[in-house]
């Protein structure tokens, strides 16, 4: 593993730590005062700082350091995390995220922004601001957290100085501490080395040590990589207790550590060995310390920095596991989970994709095999046939398991939204609270990657246009603080994401007028409320009277809709004037497989996604009614539903087929309206592997993707919404050109 790879891992982990940081801060913001939450937040910043130091990312280290110092005040109850404090912290988290991004991709964060926040953070740490903060001890001037100067090599030494809060000791005074230190296995597996920690400790003063070997088992039963030794150490030093503890700060969560001043310490029962002060023999090696990866970094640095660099690189490597640990801790919200290292592994996405592709091929192959067996097995009872059924079951299970590997909670995307809400709300001077729900709902990674953009756009819209200004809200008798709720849940094999705002709702009059002005509808069109609401998804539609920085840049909700549709999803809106709007997105859980109904249309085999189908029926001649020039309706249980000839609309045939000869599939479109799609016959129902048409051929209007059937033929997967949209015949510009696809 070379340095770049380690750096890459560092940045990946930064993402995780930043997510952890943000979720912790938001929890605190919601009144959570669990010390573990504060610890998790502190750990996140601390880990970022540690790793950044190893790579000489000065700006990042400097900022993280100040941030961490303030967080430490919260951790030690010197600073009450009230709303004002958390506001600064959340902003700092945003800047930290930007600094990470800049460190990775280049560029720089506006210096005034960083400087301003550093000042605010320092003020908080010094107990200067805000009114609710009580910081009796932190008020001492010694506590001022100042960004440390960097040395010539560009590295900033990592052992930090935030420790001196409230230390009253005169520098020359000597103190004796009794330290008990017992590393866990994780300490070593993360690349830390107890011997190096002890060496660093010994440098603080005069030290004697006793090794507790009681837990060391017999040679044959020992695990060479486990941790058995613990130590009792007595150290006399001018340093404060915090400084002694700081030696172990990278290993703090992977060891049992107790530091007491000698007066309070209990009697010593182990014989102590004095540790020689001259440990220069050990000085050459920590550069290559513990993990060979550290070599590169350490060699590039000046000797004085080697120890901290090696330590920090180890920390960077360590975070590979600790990120998973932290996530688990957040989920379970208990400290015990912090040691669950080794429960997760990091796998390159390409490998998973390859596996998924292969399983896809396996499914196709298995279907082909089944088909040829069925064709050659006239009585249908051969043992091969039964074996094949089991194979089919197994294949399905393998496929589900592989899909589960790619499933990820939507949490990271939701968290990104809270930042957007914060920033946009600040920009437009609104008070908005984002409430998220069901953020652990899992969905395929590709879906997650692709919903971020449309969701961002919708959130911006909700903040900019949805929620009213505080004055307007108050005038309307509402809480001046608006609420946007973002929720996710699973529903019938899909993920449902709802974005609910308690703003003013859609101004239907204005929307309609705008649509008329833009020639989207004719002035005399008689539209239902729902249809008016859905006009905002029409291409080029924007109700904002003036184009703002935030939204309304010409890319409107039509882009959002298209992105959602491209994912095989649907989006709809319902709005209540004065009370707010609800956007509902329904997305497939995966983009790799699909349960579909295989149908025949004009000699072609098509697959209709099962999720779209409400029911199937055999139309009777008496139920078919003509309507207008060439529209037909079918009467179903006393209501009329437009009949859409799929073969005609896709240009598979020149004339409409006779509905009585075919089958009608009742489908629900994203607008909520139902359509009966006419097909010639139903072949069956099966799971198909989605093959992108765009990637392998080119986009075909009305067709979402393709698949390979058991007999090796390619079948097209119908884009139900596009077909329904094209059949509407109203002035909503159809996206389909209805080119021949056969």
């Amino acid at each position, binding site marked *: 593993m070379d340095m770049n790879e380690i750096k890459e891992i560092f940045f990946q982990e930064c993402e995780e730590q930043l997510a952890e940081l943000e979720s912790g801060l938001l929890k605190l913001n919601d009144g959570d005062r669990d010390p573990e939450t504060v610890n998790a937040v502190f750990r996140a910043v601390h880990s970022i700082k540690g790793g950044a130091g190893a790579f000489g990312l000065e700006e990042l280290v400097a900022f993280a350091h100040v941030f961490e110092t303030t967080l430490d005040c919260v951790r030690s109850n010197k600073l009450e995390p009230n709303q004002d404090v958390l506001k600064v912290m959340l902003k700092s988290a945003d800047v930290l995220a930007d600094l990470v991004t800049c460190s990775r991709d280049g560029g720089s964060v506006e210096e005034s922004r960083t400087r301003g926040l550093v000042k605010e953070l320092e003020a908080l740490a010094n107990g200067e601001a805000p009114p609710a903060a009580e910081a009796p001890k932190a008020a001492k001037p010694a506590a001022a957290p100042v960004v440390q100067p960097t040395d010539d090599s560009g590295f900033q030494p990592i052992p930090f100085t935030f420790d001196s809060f409230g230390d009253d000791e005169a520098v020359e005074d000597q103190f004796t501490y009794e330290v008990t230190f017992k*590393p866990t296995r994780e300490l*070593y*597996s993360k*690349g830390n*080395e*107890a*011997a190096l920690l*002890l*060496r660093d400790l*010994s440098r603080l003063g005069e030290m004697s*040590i*006793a*090794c507790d*070997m009681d837990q*060391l*088992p*017999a*040679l*044959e039963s*020992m695990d*060479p*990589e*486990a*941790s*058995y*030794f613990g*130590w009792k150490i007595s150290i006399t030093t001018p340093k404060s207790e915090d400084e002694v503890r700081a030696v172990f700060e990278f290993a703090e969560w992977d060891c049992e550590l107790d530091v007491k001043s000698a007066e309070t310490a209990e009697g010593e029962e182990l014989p*102590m*060995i004095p*540790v*020689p002060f001259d*440990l220069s*023999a*050990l000085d*050459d*090696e920590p550069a*290559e*310390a*513990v*993990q060979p990866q550290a070599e590169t970094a350490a060699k590039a640095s000046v000797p004085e920095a080697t120890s901290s660099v090696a330590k920090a690189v180890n920390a960077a490597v360590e975070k590979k596991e600790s990120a998973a640990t932290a996530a688990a801790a957040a989920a379970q919200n208990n400290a015990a989970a912090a040691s669950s290292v080794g429960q997760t592994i990091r796998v390159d996405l390409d490998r998973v994709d390859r596996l998924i592709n292969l399983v896809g091929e396996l499914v196709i192959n298995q279907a082909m095999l089944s088909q040829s067996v069925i064709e050659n097995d006239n009585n249908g009872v051969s043992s091969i046939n039964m074996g094949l059924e089991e194979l089919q079951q197994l294949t399905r299970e393998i496929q589900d398991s592989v899909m589960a590997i790619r499933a990820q909670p939507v949490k990271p995307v939701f968290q990104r939204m809270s930042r957007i809400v914060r920033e946009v709300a600040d920009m437009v001077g609104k008070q908005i609270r984002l409430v998220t729900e069901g953020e652990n709902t899992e969905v395929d990674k590709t879906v997650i990657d692709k919903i971020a953009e449309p969701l961002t756009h919708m959130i911006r819209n909700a903040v900019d246009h949805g929620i009213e200004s505080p004055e307007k809200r108050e005038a309307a008798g509402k809480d001046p603080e608006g609420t946007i709720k973002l929720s996710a849940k699973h529903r019938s094999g899909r993920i449902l994401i709802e974005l609910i705002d308690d703003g003013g709702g859609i101004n239907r009059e204005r929307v309609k007028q705008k649509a008329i002005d833009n020639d989207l509808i004719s002035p005399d069109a008689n539209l239902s409320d729902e249809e008016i609401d859905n006009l905002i998804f029409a291409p080029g539609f924007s109700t904002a009277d003036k184009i703002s920085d935030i939204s309304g840049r010409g890319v409107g909700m039509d882009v959002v809709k298209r992105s959602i549709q491209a994912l095989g999803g649907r989006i709809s809106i319902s709005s209540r004037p004065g009370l707010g709007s609800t956007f509902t997105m329904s997305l497939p859980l995966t983009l790799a497989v699909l349960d579909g109904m295989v149908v025949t249309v004009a000699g072609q085999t098509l697959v209709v996604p099962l999720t779209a189908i409400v029911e199937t029926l055999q139309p009777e001649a008496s139920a078919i009614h003509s309507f207008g020039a060439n529209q037909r309706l079918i009467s179903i249980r006393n209501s009329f539903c437009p009949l859409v000839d799929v073969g005609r609309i896709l240009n598979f045939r020149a004339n409409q087929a006779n509905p009585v000869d075919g089958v009608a599939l009742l489908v629900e479109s994203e607008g909520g309206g139902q359509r009966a799609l006419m097909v010639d016959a139903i072949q069956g129902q099966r799971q198909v592997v989605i093959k992108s048409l765009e990637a392998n051929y080119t986009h075909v209007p009305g067709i979402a993707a393709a698949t390979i059937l058991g007999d090796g033929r390619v079948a097209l997967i119908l884009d139900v919404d596009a077909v329904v949209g094209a059949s509407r015949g109203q002035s909503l510009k159809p996206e389909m050109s209805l080119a021949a696809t056969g």
Partner: protein
Amino acid sequence: MAARKAASGKLALSPVLDLNEASVLHGKLMSMRGKDVVIDASAVERVGVQCAQVLVAGAAAWQADKKSFLVEKASDAFEKTMQLIGISETQLIAKEI
């Protein structure tokens, strides 16, 4: 040195006795059980606690087997690290009794 008899072995320690080396060292020692052993620590530049654990457990095992286990020519780094982590010379020696 009593280790020059027929059933004796010599084990030269690697320069870097880190986490990765702990299992290797453990394996080597396990394969030498039952005979006197002399550990050559002259090349050692770095010792991690886990290798030290293996060595101490080794000395105890040899002691139990009543075989000799001797560390010789310890490098400065080896000696200093052992001192640092509180392991005395006697804990690394087993004598034939």
